[in-house]
């Protein structure tokens, strides 16, 4: 049995709790959160061992792996502590916000030979995996353009008090929503070389952007648009859709289905038919040991457990791929602010690159900084590291 711990019992944390506790090859040894009420209730009714200090949990429990589901700004320290204890790490997305910090953690995990994974769960959605199979199989011929969209109802009015509305804690549509779309671009096509025309606009929020638009430029002349808006309540829940155009056809994919149009099947290295081919989640998805809200959530934890058991550190969503996603998000922030790319990222010698390393001025993202009251989750997470 793989011995697991869990840090953070927010929305994703409780979902991970249920999935980890029911995994046939894993044992959830202990859970950590700083809200006394939450962990006391959990201990009372479920019998799980609880901690309010994650460092103590790491010291005392001899965990094989830990799942970190705290607000983003606490990821870096917790991940580093876990790695230094020799513990394999699954960390919720977005990873570290600062790609340099993330890269150091990716390096540390690699040096120590530890499994490292980030919760970009769309990589485990069957329809997006089917899209990858089709693209990699050459179904579209030479791919030249794509569109990545993410819409959903998170911030629908000016008042919003959770950490998701606080820029300093990794909130905002860019990290919460657009990051999934960016990560899917990286997963399906590769990391963009540069970005342009980035718009980070506020609609309702005071402190963070609610909508994100940009053009992404990839190797080989591939271009694409990204659009994310989390103030969109015509969608019942988050909806992510990608469209691809190539010399041999087009492909549209969302969580439920893939729609493929192929001009000439002989161009591809996989069996295809000319014209339209649709596939649906009802046929694509595979049953998991336990289901909660979507196969992908169980599949990613299962992937983590299997990686620990087998010692294969090359997971589907590694720290390194998550850093690449953070790197694109950082490029978009610089682009929106009109700042030049640092030399390493753009391949060009950027003048005035010293300015890039300093934090962005608040005005750069067209939002006014207001110090929001500390929400409950923030207080909890803050106490975790104090």
């Amino acid at each position, binding site marked *: 049995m793989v011995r697991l711990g869990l840090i953070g019992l*927010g*929305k994703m944390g*409780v*979902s991970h*709790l*249920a*999935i980890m*506790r*029911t995994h046939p090859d894993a044992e959830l040894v202990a859970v950590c959160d700083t*809200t*006394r*009420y*939450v962990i*006391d*209730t*959990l201990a*009372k*009714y*479920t*019998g*799980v061992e609880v901690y309010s200090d994650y460092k103590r949990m790491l010291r005392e429990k001899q965990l094989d792996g830990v799942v970190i589901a705290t607000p983003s700004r606490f990821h870096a320290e917790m991940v580093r502590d876990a790695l230094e204890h020799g513990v394999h790490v699954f960390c919720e997305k977005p990873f570290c916000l600062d790609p340099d910090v993330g890269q150091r953690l990716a390096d540390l995990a690699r040096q120590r030979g530890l499994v490292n994974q980030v919760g970009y769960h769309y990589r485990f959605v069957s329809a997006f995996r089917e899209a990858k199979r089709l693209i990699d199989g050459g179904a579209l011929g030479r791919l030249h353009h794509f569109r990545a969209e993410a819409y959903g*109802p*998170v*911030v*629908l009015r000016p008042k*919003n*008090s*959770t950490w*998701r509305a606080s820029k300093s804690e990794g909130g905002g549509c860019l990290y919460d929503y657009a990051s999934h779309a960016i990560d899917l671009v990286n997963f399906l096509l590769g990391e963009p070389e540069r970005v342009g025309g980035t718009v980070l606009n506020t609609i309702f929020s005071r402190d963070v952007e609610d909508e994100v638009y940009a053009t992404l430029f990839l190797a080989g002349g591939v271009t694409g648009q990204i659009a994310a808006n989390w103030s969109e309540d*015509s969608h*019942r*829940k988050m*909806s992510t*859709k990608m469209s691809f155009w190539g010399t041999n056809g087009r492909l549209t994919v*969302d*969580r*439920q*289905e893939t729609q493929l149009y192929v001009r000439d099947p002989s161009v591809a290295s996989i069996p295809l038919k000319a014209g339209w081919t649709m596939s*649906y*989640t*009802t*046929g694509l*998805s595979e*049953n*998991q*040991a*336990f*289901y*909660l*809200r979507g*196969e992908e959530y169980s599949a990613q934890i299962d992937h983590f457990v299997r990686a620990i058991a087998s010692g294969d550190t090359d997971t589907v969503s590694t720290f390194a791929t998550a850093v690449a996603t953070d790197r694109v998000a950082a490029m978009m922030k610089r682009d929106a602010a009109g700042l030049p790319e640092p030399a390493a990222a753009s391949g060009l010698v950027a003048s005035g690159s010293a300015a890039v390393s300093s934090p962005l001025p608040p005005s750069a993202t067209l939002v006014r900084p207001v110090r929001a009251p500390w*929400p*409950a*989750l923030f207080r909890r997470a803050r106490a975790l590291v104090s």
Partner: protein
Amino acid sequence: MTMQRILFGDNQFFGVNHMSEEKARAQLMRFESDQAIIDVLDIAYEAGIRVFMCTTHDRIAVICDHVRAHPTRYADFEFYPCMPYAHKYANAVTEHGMFEALKLFLPKEGAIGALMKSGVSVATKDMQGIARLLIDAEMKMFHGLRTPVIWLQNVVTDLLLGSGFNDAFRYFADHVKAKYGAEPGFITMNMPKLLDVLEAQGIENPIICANINKLGFRMCPGIAQYEALIATRRFRPVAMSVLASGAIPPREAIDYVCRQKNIKSIVFGASSRGNIQETKRLIDELSAAA
């Protein structure tokens, strides 16, 4: 209590479709008016379907008002409510945080509400008391209507099941029996695991609604375990997602379910007169033949 064989579901009214977001959106547009929902319910009623299995979505309150206002017309109409409407809570948790969201859904008055509001740790951690308050809040809209079965919705069932919050199932069962004279039902995507836990909680011959379809779609951990369970264990299985959102042809889909003789009821949702009448006819025909 005898379970009705055919239950009319409500996914189609609220844009739930497992195959296509486009279809889901088209359904949302079509059922934007309450009258459009009532019209379809009337078609189902005229076809001989007597049960509406519905979530506690805010819009269902309007349907409840309509049925209450026409007691003669809907003389033997029954609701099997499913609670809670999970997105209402999930979105509130996203927007307000878990603690604040819980406060929003608890009554403003009362000792627990007051305690929660004060932000003080609820020393007793009386989950049974909190569960009762949440159930009562969800049941308000059904006042005066027949609700012989009350369901715990699958995201909540499976979250509790996975977390090991097993007592919660007994709290739910006890309260819906005691206060509403109803049978507790449990919706899940993890039927084998749930049945074991419900039996261990002393909930005998439980009513469990789960995906049961020829494709094995969302039957965790697998279709073979479901088939064995249905054939050998004592419980009242209710089949949903029988057509797997349209992925299985209707006759083939219903034939598969009817061949598993211990399945008590079948839930389906449809929007057109033709589909409703045809599905009803197929269930009647293949149930009789099995």
